[in-house]
């Protein structure tokens, strides 16, 4: 086993099959279901649950149904530690899957690793999850912020050469790591850097500053609500930059929901399409609007069957893909899964799935998706890919186009009908 630094007790636990019975596997996660951080995230577990339900309805994985326990931590790290300990000690989960948030999850990584609990597919793009030496049980999921920043940076540099660039980033690791990537390419084009604080929804001062500095391209490392807020604030002050938005905040479905029927009043009429048209975003999963994509069609089917009342957004899709990926790993762990076997399956590099870029999982890397594609939002809020998937590393390595094959749903065939 690779449980380098964890103590003896942890290593024993790693080989255990806690949470696995003849016919069930108990897994858990922590999510902000309520409180100020819930908007935007509370639907992830809904998507995941739909997939687990589909798996269970199809007889489970190797005959075991997945018991998915979702604990609400309200994005409060103290609460996260408590609920994760509850999941581990009381519910005796087999693994934590998709724990959400950097400030929250970073508080339980040490604990989960020392207890030998697989900590899979963390819902955050922080770099910390990819540390197989110190955190052998922890695996990332989404593309990390620096990789994504690099891809955005190169795109901006190539496409908007010579134009003035402004950054608008969340005041935490999202902003910091993204800028680290961006700066490798567009540092000398940058005229202004503004940050926002997720507790303060008035972003007009920042947008005014971006406008005042003459930024023609605004790279926005924002969560969806703040992407929408910046678009509205820009509209308010009559500022029309080219927005380039990170995957965490560029879901067209969510954005158009947020921006529908604004400013229809007082004679003006601005539809969400008008506000969003031309916005450039990055992504690593196919977009829900790309109905021709086999995986989108597949997940849409699950959605319509299990959660038809929820809007089918990329947020829901995010949860679905996450659950599906875990299902693949569990299946790969064989008929008698142990914690160590699941970890080995994760790092085997064999997981091919819904994402348009590959996972970075191997013996030496626990990075999640390793690249992104670039898309543009059309006036009808569909998307067009304007730069195909490319992959890179989190350092200063090159960005290379990715041309690997994706497995189709039929090939993976996780859920039997």
């Amino acid at each position, binding site marked *: 086993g690779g449980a380098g630094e964890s103590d003896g007790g942890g290593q024993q636990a790693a080989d255990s099959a806690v949470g696995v019975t003849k016919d069930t596997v108990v897994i858990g996660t922590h999510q902000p*279901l*309520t*409180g*100020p951080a*819930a*908007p*935007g995230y*509370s*639907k992830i577990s809904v998507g995941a649950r739909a997939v687990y339900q589909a798996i269970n309805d199809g007889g489970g994985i190797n005959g075991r149904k997945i018991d998915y326990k979702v604990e609400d931590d309200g994005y409060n790290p103290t609460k996260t530690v408590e609920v994760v300990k509850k999941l581990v000690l009381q519910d005796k989960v087999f693994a934590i899957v998709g724990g959400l948030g950097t400030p929250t999850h970073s508080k339980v990584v040490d604990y989960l690793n020392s207890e030998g609990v697989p900590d899979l597919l963390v819902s955050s793009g922080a770099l910390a999850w990819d540390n197989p030496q110190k955190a052998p049980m922890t695996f990332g999921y989404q593309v990390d912020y620096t990789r994504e920043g690099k891809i955005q940076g190169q795109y901006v540099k190539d496409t908007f050469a010579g134009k003035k660039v402004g950054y608008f980033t969340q*005041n935490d690791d999202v902003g910091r790591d993204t800028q680290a990537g961006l700066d490798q390419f567009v540092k000398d084009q940058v005229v202004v850097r503004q*940050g*926002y*604080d997720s*507790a*303060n*929804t*008035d*972003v*007009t*001062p*920042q947008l*005014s*500053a971006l406008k*005042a500095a003459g930024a023609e391209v605004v790279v926005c490392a924002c969560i969806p*609500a703040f992407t*929408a*807020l910046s678009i*509205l604030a820009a*509209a*308010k*002050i*009559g500022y029309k930059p080219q927005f380039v938005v990170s995957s965490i905040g560029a879901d067209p479905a969510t954005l158009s*929901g*947020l*921006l*529908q*029927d*604004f*400013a*229809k*009043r*007082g*004679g*003006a009429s*601005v539809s969400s399409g008008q506000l969003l048209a031309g916005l450039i975003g990055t992504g690593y999963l196919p977009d829900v609007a790309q109905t021709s994509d086999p995986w989108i069609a597949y997940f849409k089917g699950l959605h319509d069957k299990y959660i038809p009342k929820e809007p089918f957004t990329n947020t829901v899709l995010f949860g679905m893909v996450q659950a599906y990926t875990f299902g693949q790993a569990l299946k790969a762990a064989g008929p008698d899964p142990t914690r160590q076997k699941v970890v080995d399956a994760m790092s085997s590099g064999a997981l091919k799935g819904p994402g348009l870029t590959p996972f970075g999982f191997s013996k030496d890397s626990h990075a999640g998706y390793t690249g992104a594609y670039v898309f543009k939002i059309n006036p009808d809020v569909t998307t067009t890919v304007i730069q195909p998937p490319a992959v890179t590393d989190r350092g200063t390595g090159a960005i290379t186009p990715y041309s690997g094959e994706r497995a189709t749903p039929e090939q993976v065939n996780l859920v039997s009908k």
Partner: protein
Amino acid sequence: MQDFFDLTLGGISAGAVYAALGLALVIIYRATRVVNFAQPALALISTYLAYSVTKATGSYWLGFAVAIVAGTLLGVATERLLIRPLRHRSELSSIIVTLGLLLVLQAVAGMIWSNEPLAFSYAFDFRGRFSANDLFVVLVVVAIAALVLVVFKYTPLGLRMRAAAFAPEVARTLGVRVGLMLTAGWGLAAAVGSLAGLLATPPFLFPNVLDGVFVYALTAAVLGGLDNPLGTIAGGFVLGVGLSYVSGYFGPEMVTIAALAILVIVLTLRPSGLFGRAKVRRV
């Protein structure tokens, strides 16, 4: 300089919203000596109702009206069911009960409308440095404050309400229908609170949307002196503009610290707020 001007205008419309919710707090405080922590939740529910009505009928103003009426009823019900039984109890009891109500109503909102943000539009066009909507917000708030001031200070109804709040037992022996006054105070306050919710919510509506506004509203009310509607308005604008400068010049992460600093400075110099009654005889 352009920056300064924009920040000022932005601060004014933000401040108007703080003032509006602050007014609701002041009215209830004047009417029942209770700080109503459930105020944001009462406003929240009314705003969600407005959202649903607007969505169903397409009429913003119908939703607006429904929200005000619903808010009033909610306020009345709160007073009757939760606050009245606490008449003879410490101020803490009412703080905790209104907090409990805040949790319940936010949860109910989440259950019905989900915790995900919904688009909630402005009353008028929001575009422009000082947009039609900004003007509307400021005018409404100033008008309401003036009205509240006149009602409380110059009408017999206001006098009754104040007497009922300060000394219910004495007021009763003077023929004041104390229960009615307290209920009326809550109804009025909740109506103003709902209005504040409608003004403060856009662009997005979610269960915790008014939390931050509430903190600043309470700060504004305390700044201005809780007994004084015009003080609250002043407090709201001072806070709105001040925080806008801080956000613009020092960064948004400084805003909450700045609010604390402003409050501490003002209260150190004037423990009853900018416009609160100064010293009272104590012996």
